[in-house]
């Protein structure tokens, strides 16, 4: 018996049997061919062998609370150091009674970041001005002076140090990178070759040699009698390092723009500065945002290198813990803890960059 339908009103039929559902998914993705089946079975077997002992080591047999290594009597991991040294991981050697300043800076940082990164922030224009003022507020809060107890930068450490180095580096290197990228594209040979020389020199040497320069010989080049503390010298070198990489990212954005954009701007009577400001840079920077975030992730990871010249970021605190009599030799646990910390922060940043990439990729959606 068949029912009559007016054209276009027939309800959709269910998909044929065996083309949906979990069984079909398994068939398609795990057992589609003999080789595939063998691979799947081997992997499952290996997991069954490896996972239970790992879970035991990480969780079931692990010790989570304790004063020192002697508290860890079980076979599993010894996570007790995390509770013992957590404050060190966050604040470094910042004086305990002044730590509220670090916390306050952290809260202000989140607000400033939200203003920059979240495009539906209420009153975004005003918040942008606040974000521009934030670095000065943060410097005052962290180093003290003008009413606050001064804290030497040698007390900075842990996550605080990572964020100070990473954010200073990225914030200052962005305008420098734009200038260098424009310089590299410039038609004026002196400016062009100076930019190329600077960028290629910085990209050709490892960051660690630049940090050595900061720690051993940068003071020679500064005015006689002046003394910059180590953190400031490191910040100078890290900023120069990041600006060279930033310049290359932005150059990519500039090169992706068709030449017609600049020609159109010039034919409208805009001079170089106006054309760059209103036509070229807004488009080029938009294209380069994912690359800029990736540069930031790289810089954030590279801040760990400061431990080689004696500053203590989370990894440095971890390395000191491994050598500390209370926790001597707990290397795997300590480094895994620090690794998880870095993974969480870097992974979320890379997700953000992916989200931006999708959001900004409007060219083909008509």
């Amino acid at each position, binding site marked *: 018996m068949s029912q009559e339908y007016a054209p276009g009103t027939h309800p959709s039929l269910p998909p044929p049997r065996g083309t949906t559902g979990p069984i079909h998914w398994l068939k398609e*993705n795990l057992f589609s061919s003999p080789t595939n089946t063998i691979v799947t079975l081997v992997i499952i077997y290996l997991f069954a062998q490896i996972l239970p002992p790992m879970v035991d080591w990480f969780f079931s047999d692990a010790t989570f609370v304790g004063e020192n290594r002697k508290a860890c009597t079980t076979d599993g991991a010894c996570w007790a150091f995390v509770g013992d040294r957590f404050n060190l991981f966050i604040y470094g050697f910042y004086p305990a009674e002044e730590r509220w300043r670090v916390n306050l800076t952290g809260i202000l940082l989140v607000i400033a970041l939200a203003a920059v990164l979240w495009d539906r922030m209420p009153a975004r224009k005003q918040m942008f001005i606040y974000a521009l003022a934030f670095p000065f507020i943060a410097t005052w809060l962290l180093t003290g002076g003008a009413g606050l107890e001064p804290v030497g930068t040698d007390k900075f450490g842990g996550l605080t140090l990572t964020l100070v180095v990473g954010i200073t580096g990225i914030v200052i290197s962005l305008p420098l990178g734009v200038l260098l990228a424009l310089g590299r594209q410039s038609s004026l040979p002196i400016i062009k070759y100076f930019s190329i020389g600077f960028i290629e020199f910085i990209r*050709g040497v490892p960051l660690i040699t630049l940090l050595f320069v900061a720690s051993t*010989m940068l003071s*020679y080049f500064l005015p006689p009698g002046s003394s910059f503390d180590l953190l400031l010298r490191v910040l100078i070198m890290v900023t120069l390092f990041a600006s060279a990489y930033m310049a290359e990212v932005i150059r990519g954005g500039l090169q992706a723009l068709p030449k017609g954009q600049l020609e159109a701007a010039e034919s409208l009577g805009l001079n170089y500065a106006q054309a760059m400001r209103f036509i070229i840079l807004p488009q080029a920077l938009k294209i380069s945002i994912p690359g800029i975030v990736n540069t930031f992730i790289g810089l954030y990871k590279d801040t760990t290198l400061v*431990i080689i010249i004696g500053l203590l970021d989370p990894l440095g605190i971890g390395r000191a813990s491994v050598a500390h009599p209370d926790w001597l030799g707990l290397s795997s646990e300590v480094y895994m803890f620090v690794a998880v910390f870095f993974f969480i922060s870097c992974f979320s940043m890379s997700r953000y960059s992916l989200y931006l990439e999708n959001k900004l990729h409007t060219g083909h959606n008509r």
Partner: protein
Amino acid sequence: MSTTSYNSNPILRAWYDKETRSVIVQVIAMAIILAFFAYVINNAVINMANLGKDISFSFLWQPASYDINQTLIEYSSRSSHFDAMIVGLINTLLIAAAGIVLSTIVGFILGVMRLSNNWLTQKIAYVYIEFVRNVPVLLHILLIHGFIIYSLPRPKQAINMGDTFFLNNRGLQMPSADFQPLFWAVTATFVIGLSFAIWYRRYAKKLQDTTGKISPVWTISFIAVIVAPLAIYFLLGSPIEWDVPALKGFNFKGGMVIRPEFIALWLALSLYTAAFIGENVRAGIMAVSHGQTEAAHALGVSSSRTLRLVVIPQALRVIIPPLNSQYLNLTKNSSLAIAIGYMDVVATIGGISLNQTGREMECMLIVMAIYLILSLLISAVMNWFNDRIRLVER
């Protein structure tokens, strides 16, 4: 009216002329750059004069008086700082070369796994790549080094692999080869086999171009390069004597040892870089449109030949440029050796020599120059390779 006022002012007139303006801007820029360098160098001269220092590279010929734990050439604490630098440079080159080889192999495997049609394989590669590349490379180095030093057994309880390899917290003990005089025959066979294989490859290509006949290049090359030298080796009665390590007291005697610093640095750098290479490889393979494979199949080309002749050559064009920068990164990251005491060029001339002689300026200049030259060399090789496989257009 305004135009006359522009024209009457010669400075403004010069400014509105594009050529003149670019000269003016460049002269100003040059002046600023020169002034900056003059200021900085003047500071350095004054500061160094205050400290009673000068710039001289003669310290390079003085005895270094420190020991290096891994030396591939003759070196003792009586050798000069220059020798220490060469030893360090060789160690850097060794770790870079070993790292480039391993990271390429692992990276290509990861890239192919990411595209596998087995869901589990895909996800394993994904989780590995995401975890490894979001953790700083220095942390990888310290983690593996710490694992070897603290978690592996002492030499007495070393992990025994077939009585020839022993893994313990002092590194990997392995047999060392002592070449007998007759070994030259094996080397000669290998060289002849290699030249034959290269000649045969060209010959086969010419043959295919003229007649369309396909010759078994791979099988014949394999026989010439691998099987023939092996056959000669066994015919001559194995002219290598292996010195197998054995436990004597608290440590191993005989054989050779790969030190924990080398293993940690090598594995960490390679596995870290491999995660990035894996993503590059995946992107490269995905950049080859599926239509290419379908077209090759429609022409009756077999699957393996499609992969070798159609997909891989096109994918390589996308993969090589980022691969180049990964190799550069790996080489530069090898400078992190200093964190675990592997004696590379930074740790020797830029570390101990610098601290002993107090010649910061000279040592850092040498180290930077070495890395710049290395970067240029790697880029040159990769650009040459890139030019060879590039799409030739009209």
